[in-house]
């Protein structure tokens, strides 16, 4: 093939030349490849015509009549085999290739229809005629002719429209360092970035409002940087420190605090669609996903340069490491590519593979480049200049990569069927298996094969069939149980997690190479092969070339983080800006394509992006720069006249108030109640889950939700299985765990009010807070009210507020004396931090002894008796009850959950 394409080019390079030189040339080279593919099978076109006619006359009808009921895409795929597609036959099912073109003697299909092998007789109970068998044999001997997939003649041709878009659309134009704009009010800017903001404001005749007051500022910046509230002591300290360096000192303290990584790491986890299970269609846990979570937190905490952070996640396994520890980290980093949702119930391996590649392409391009390349899976992108060939240039890279998430595809499996221990990364170094161990594995594998064939034999055994109903069922169940037992043994022997430590991630595939374009995105419809490469929309001169001997991920990582790639820095500074200022300079943070928003301050974006690269891709320096700016420190005050002109604050004349994220609300309640464990928990509650399907109503699922409810660690450490989002997070618009989420929704719904009013967790934290303050101040006078205001809202209470609060507590206390039921708290005390040792007694996860699924059809289980036990409650004494109710009111107030 390389002979026919004298200059083998990467996808982007390939196409970037197209418009300049050889539109026809590209097109022709793809055609050449198509013909080359055909040539492998059949040199003589007239002979091929005859073979195809033979196929249509004899073979296709035979397959339709005898095999389709069990082996076609529209019906079923027994044993993973389909016969309605040549690739399906050649790839074969679980038993191996059904057809080896040219070699009927090696083709399982011929063995099956020959009826010579008692264990493999097809079609069952209806032996084909000798003539039919002879036809099949002849067809395979002559190369198993099958009509070519037809694809449009203009496939791979670039359009003038795309060429124009490549030149014109702002986001992929080269980065330029803009000169600083002139401003009238030269005293206002504190930092260069302020000049860009002010210049626009002056152009629009808008006035920036005044600076934020100290209390508002420290609350804002502490939440923004750490996700936690400032303590009253820190507020007082900052408010009283009149020095010019006070704010800088505060910033540096926050940037250095371990809570920084937990806050900013979570932003990346949103984008990385982090979760600890496959999601639909069968929800299989990823017990090792948490290692990636910790890697991300550490990367932000240690201020790993962003370009390095990206390279490690895309190609960590291909980067040099100077120690085993570093090697492990690099492997864990590639978990980014492995954590996506997966349809493990997919019948066909090729579809499973191509769907997962699509998921990887979608995640990589949207998270790092804010481009929706996966739109080009089935056809050229409708809006952006991303032709389908670019998509398959990327697909070739991921096709040359093993996706190691510990799961395989299988239709209708049960128990451990979906677990594939060979698809996991071993960390901590390779343990060389002993000969004894290898023998044990072989033995177990043989036993498993034996048990499987026993089950099949039993199912087809007429004697057992006669034992209809329970008796027959029972035999089958026993056979299934035997398989489960052997599987468990096999997992014990082969699971890297059982003998050491395991991680999710990727590795180079055994064979690497380009992949074919799939016509209309259909996994089986192979078009021409596409050279591996990158997106032509982001072409630049010095871009790396895929190493033919590797997958190309290393070069993809280099291409993504090349200083000449304008999207990567633009996208990241925009994400950071959004988290600090409330909206991105480009509001559609995950889409910089033609359908995305245009930047409100294009020059500011480039100013920040170039500065970001110059500052060594340091996220912390970027955050520090922005947080130090005058723009960031503006008050949130709204002004009628300006709000009429720019209601959305596009031009940044004030600071937008922000609602706390779900994690911040939960963590702030725990923190103010003095109940937050700042320690990082070991692993995750999900780490002990077996790799078997997790149903919403299963005991394990309930245990996960309970673990989340009882946990007193920061929310980033809660178990995050897809479809089982902890309610405390879900209620306040947590990220959709299967999708790249650069910007969360901010809804206001009654379920949030119901959660704050009635949830046992909120009651418990309110009670702990009340007890904390009452313990400090037995008189519980105005000081207690003030103390609670400072703890929860970060400010002093006003005189009317103190009076109102005291009145409330007194009234409530006396009213609750006359009520039959006083305010309630959780009967079983929720676990809390033992401050003396700072160890947690929370979220202990018992070792799981999940029963293997032995039911013949576990999907037929009734779920009508669903236990939804919320913690029961016990009455408190009226005084504590009244103060608890007061604390809860503070937690429930809008002021608690909004930042000015």
């Amino acid at each position: 093939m390389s002979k026919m394409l004298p200059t083998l080019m990467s996808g982007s390079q390939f196409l970037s030349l197209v418009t300049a030189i050889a539109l026809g040339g590209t097109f022709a080279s793809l055609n050449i490849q198509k013909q080359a593919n055909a040539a492998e099978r059949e040199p003589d076109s007239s002979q091929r015509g005859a073979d195809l006619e033979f196929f249509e006359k004899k073979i296709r009808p035979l397959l339709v009549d005898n095999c389709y009921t069990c082996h076609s895409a529209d019906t079923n795929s027994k044993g993973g085999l389909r016969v309605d597609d040549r690739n399906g036959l050649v790839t074969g099912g679980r038993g191996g290739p059904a057809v080896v073109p040219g070699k009927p003697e090696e083709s399982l299909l011929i063995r099956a229809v020959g009826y010579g092998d008692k264990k493999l007789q097809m079609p069952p109970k209806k032996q084909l005629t000798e003539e039919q068998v002879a036809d099949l044999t002849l067809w395979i001997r002559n190369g198993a002719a099958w009509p070519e997939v037809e694809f449009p003649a203009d496939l791979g041709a670039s359009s003038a429209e795309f060429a124009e878009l490549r030149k014109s659309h702002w986001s992929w134009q080269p980065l330029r360092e803009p000169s600083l704009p002139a401003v009238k009010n030269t005293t206002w800017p504190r930092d260069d970035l302020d000049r860009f903001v002010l210049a626009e404001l002056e152009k629009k005749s808008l006035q920036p409002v005044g600076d934020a007051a100290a209390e508002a500022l420290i609350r804002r910046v502490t939440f923004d940087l750490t996700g936690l509230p400032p303590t009253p002591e820190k507020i007082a300290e900052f408010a009283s420190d009149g020095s010019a360096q006070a704010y800088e000192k505060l910033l540096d303290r926050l940037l250095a605090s371990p809570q920084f990584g937990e806050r900013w790491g979570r932003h990346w986890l949103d984008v990385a669609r982090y979760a600890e299970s496959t999601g639909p269609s069968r929800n299989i846990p990823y017990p090792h996903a948490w290692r990636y979570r910790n890697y991300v937190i550490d990367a932000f905490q240690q201020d790993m340069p962003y370009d390095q952070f990206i390279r490690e996640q895309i190609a960590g396994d291909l980067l040099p490491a100077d120690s085993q520890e570093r090697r492990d980290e690099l492997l864990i980093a590639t978990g980014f590519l492995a954590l996506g949702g997966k349809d493990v119930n997919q019948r066909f391996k090729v579809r499973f593979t191509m769907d997962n590649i699509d998921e990887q392409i979608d995640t990589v391009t949207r998270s790092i480049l804010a481009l929706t390349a996966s739109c080009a899976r089935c056809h050229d992108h409708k809006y952006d200049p991303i032709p389908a060939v670019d998509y398959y240039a990327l697909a070739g890279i991921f096709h040359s990569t093993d996706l190691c998430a510990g799961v395989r595809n299988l239709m209708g499996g049960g128990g451990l069927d979906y677990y594939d221990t060979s698809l996991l990364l071993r960390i901590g170094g390779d343990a060389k298996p002993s000969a004894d161990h290898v023998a044990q594995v072989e033995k177990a594998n043989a036993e498993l094969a034996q048990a499987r064939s026993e089950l099949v034999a039993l199912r087809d055994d007429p004697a057992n069939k006669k034992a209809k109903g329970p008796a027959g069922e029972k035999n089958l169940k026993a056979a299934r149980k035997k398989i489960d037992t052997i599987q468990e043994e096999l997992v014990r022997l082969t699971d890297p997690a059982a003998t050491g430590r395991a991680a999710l991630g990727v590795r180079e595939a055994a064979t690497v190479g380009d992949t074919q374009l799939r016509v209309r995105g259909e996994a089986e419809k192979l078009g021409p092969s596409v050279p591996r490469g990158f997106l032509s929309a982001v072409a630049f001169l010095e871009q790396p070339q895929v190493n033919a001997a590797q997958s190309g991920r290393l070069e993809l990582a280099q291409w993504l983080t090349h200083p000449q790639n304008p999207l990567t820095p633009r996208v990241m500074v925009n994400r950071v800006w959004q988290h600090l200022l409330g909206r991105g300079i480009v509001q559609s943070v995950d889409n910089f394509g033609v359908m995305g928003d245009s930047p409100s301050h294009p020059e500011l974006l480039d100013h920040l992006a170039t500065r970001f690269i110059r500052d060594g891709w340091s996220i912390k320096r970027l955050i520090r720069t922005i947080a130090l700016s005058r723009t960031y420190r503006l008050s949130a005050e709204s002004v009628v006249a300006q709000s009429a002109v720019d209601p959305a604050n596009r031009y940044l004349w004030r600071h937008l108030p922000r609602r706390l994220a779900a994690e911040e609300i939960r963590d702030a309640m725990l923190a103010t109640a003095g109940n937050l464990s700042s320690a990082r928990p070991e692993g995750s509650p999900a780490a002990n889950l077996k790799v078997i399907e997790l149903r919403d109503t299963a005991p394990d699922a309930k245990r996960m939700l309970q673990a989340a409810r009882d946990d007193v660690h920061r929310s980033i450490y809660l178990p995050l299985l897809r479809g089982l989002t902890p309610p405390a997070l879900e209620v306040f618009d947590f990220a959709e765990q299967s999708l790249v989420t650069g910007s969360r929704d901010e809804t206001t719904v009654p379920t949030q009010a119901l959660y704050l009013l009635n949830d046992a967790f909120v009651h418990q934290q309110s009670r702990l807070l009340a007890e904390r303050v009452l313990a400090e101040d037995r008189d519980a006078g105005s000081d207690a009210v003030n103390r609670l205001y400072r703890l929860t809202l970060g400010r002093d209470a006003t005189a009317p507020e103190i009076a109102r609060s005291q009145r409330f507590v007194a009234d409530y206390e006396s009213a609750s004396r006359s009520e039959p039921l006083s305010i309630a708290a959780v009967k079983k005390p929720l676990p809390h931090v033992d401050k003396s040792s700072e160890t947690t007694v929370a979220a202990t996860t018992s070792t799981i002894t999940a029963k293997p699924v032995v039911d013949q059809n576990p999907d037929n289980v009734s779920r009508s008796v669903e236990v939804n036990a919320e913690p029961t409650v016990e009455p408190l004494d009226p005084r504590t009850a009244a103060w608890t109710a007061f604390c809860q009111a503070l937690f429930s107030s809008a002021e608690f959950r909004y930042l000015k």
Partner: protein
Amino acid sequence: MSTNPASYPAWNNPLSRRQALRHAGFGFGYLALAGLLGEQNRTACAAPPRSTPPNPLAPKAPHFPTKAKRIIFLFMEGAMSQLDTFEYKAKLQSDDQKVGPGGGTLVASKFKFAQHGQTGTWVSELYPHMAKQVDKLCFLRGLHTDTPAHPQAIVQLHTGAAQATLTRPSLGAWLMYGLGTENQDLPGYVTINPPANFGGAVNYGSAFMPAQFQGTRVADSGYLPNIKPQIPEKLQRRQLDLIQAMNRDLAKDPAAPAALDGVIQSYELAFRMQDKVPKLLDISSEPQTVLDEYGVKPGPAGSFARQCLMARRLSEAGVRFVEICHPGWDQHNNLHKELIRNSAATDQPTAALLHDLERRGLLDETLVLFGSEFGRLPTAQGPDGRDHNITGYPMWLAGAGVKPGFSYGATDEYGLHAVEGKMHTTDLHATLLALLGLDHESLTYPYAGREFRLTDVAGNVVREIFA
């Protein structure tokens, strides 16, 4: 597609473009919310007036006038054997044990079929109560779908797409987005005992739409998280008054968030909800005659009856979309025994629901949908089972907007492939949206750089069934 950002209304809050687009597409919401918040006197506030973010759940006019205001979906999870219940095939009955087209051994139904009603519709002896209601039903007999596996087919039936790597909003979420809710004191989309796997929450999720549009999951015991106050109502009212006083104070602050009015409103709503919702979900308040009519009894066997009665109560109260579920229809074996069990659990309650809706005059504005993610084969699997069939199977509709006593489409003589009036899942979705007044091609939502539809790029509305 016209999506020029400059043309969107800009509100005084950090609306994302997604949110802006959502409202630009319909242009209502403002007025409805103004009405909702009418009782609030905000003139006393010193703060500058803030425009209010529109309530995305405010009732919205459909694209075109329609009879159906609400829908109840009775989901038979696991693929009910149509050939033993509502799909009579004389040829299958006579060709028992012969080789079927495409292989396999044909197996006739063991259950007796008879014609019922004025329409003479065939129903098996498993559904004696439903047999009396057949003249209300509008059968879709030529359905087909893409994947003969429960997880994908169930997710596709509920969200329009089976692709697990991109979760899409559920049918109910699309209805919430397109129509809003009728009763602001209640969730507009309720799902009772939804599938615990096969996509789980995806089947009633909102995916890339905001969370307001997702379904509220309720157990057939009436359980709903956080709906029960932990303290006596009088005391909670005091507490709520304090919270609201604090919130109103904040409203005077010029730096108050734009969503503050919504927060204040949400507390009042929540307080009303905790009074109303448990009462609504409590079927014990129904007269004994009604309980008997539905066949309500304790335990798993009575689950579906409880769900049917809850569905009627929720629908009557204005819940836009109620889905109820009977699992356990996946008879690869034990077909005979389990069909008897399942039909016994579903026949009487389903018939009672139709009858009850009609009696209350609700059937004229409520659409009822009954069926599975796909059907089963006419051929045998094992000694007493049938395997999946996605190439031809039925569902039925009843009530608002559809022809009663009507049948559309057909499968071949054995009930294997749809041959007439073929309807893909997307056609079903397009038709359901149309019955509720929504044009499936106009009901779009922007995400990841393009407009998404429930029906993606396909879908034909089958107008032949419209009354």
